[in-house]
């Protein structure tokens, strides 16, 4: 089961590299969306592996609220680039 998580960590390194090397703000937002979703899914996998329900509930909350926060942040950045 460890090999699945190691593969997920390697997949997480791809958007981290993208956020580091690209200077465009929207590319960075895209990398952030990818990282936020991937970390929440990793939390869910770990909660199933350990049979720990409290981590699973927190992962679901972070997954859903994180998307809402991302949309809010994107709206704020869009307004200040245009205006």
């Amino acid at each position, binding site marked *: 089961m460890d090999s699945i998580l190691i593969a997920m960590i390697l997949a997480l390194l791809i958007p981290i590299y993208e956020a580091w090397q690209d200077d465009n*703000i929207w590319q*960075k937002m895209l990398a*952030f969306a990818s990282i936020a979703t991937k970390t929440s899914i990793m*939390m869910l996998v770990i909660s199933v592996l350990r049979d720990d329900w409290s*981590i699973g509930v927190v992962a679901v909350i972070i997954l859903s609220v994180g998307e809402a926060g991302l949309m809010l942040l994107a709206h704020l*950045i869009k307004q200040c680039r245009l205006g």
Partner: protein
Amino acid sequence: MIDNYVYVIVALLPLAALMLVFQVNPYNALVIRAILGAVSALVYAILGAADVALTEALVGTMLAVTLYVVAVRSSLVMRLGILKEFKIEKESYFEELIANLRKVINKYHLRLEIVEYSNSKALEQALMAKEVHATCIKQEQEQVDTQNQNSTTGIDIRQTYHTTIRVRRLFEIMKTELTFPETTLDYVTVSNEEDKH
């Protein structure tokens, strides 16, 4: 007993923190701060602190970053006051001047906001009341008789702009970096006596 993958995930935290430290653009730094928040929430969750992870995701990633974007957006701005007729005339020189100003202040991660006023008296009062950081007005150099000669020979009238800045640091930046011959720069000190009462 600690699993092997925990060490690898914890190693992501200083990686994200180093990315944040070496970022100079404030907006990019805030997005990377959000990435750091997501990674640290994962680290807290796998170490068993579910409540800390939830707090980090909600407060650290969502609330703090959103509030900081609002704060940076309203403070890193240069407000330029102009007259309303400028916009209607659609002069090429004016558009060029605005493009030049934007290029200079974009280097300092500032943003240009244009505020319109109906007459020059309101513009002057706005500068004195600290509503705007700078004003831009038009001044014509040619005399009336030369203007008549030009209209007969078909040469267009040369217009220049006069930009008054009340913030010293902005004036220093513009003096060294704005290379646009059609405008003259001027610095004016505004007394802050209304702060005292």
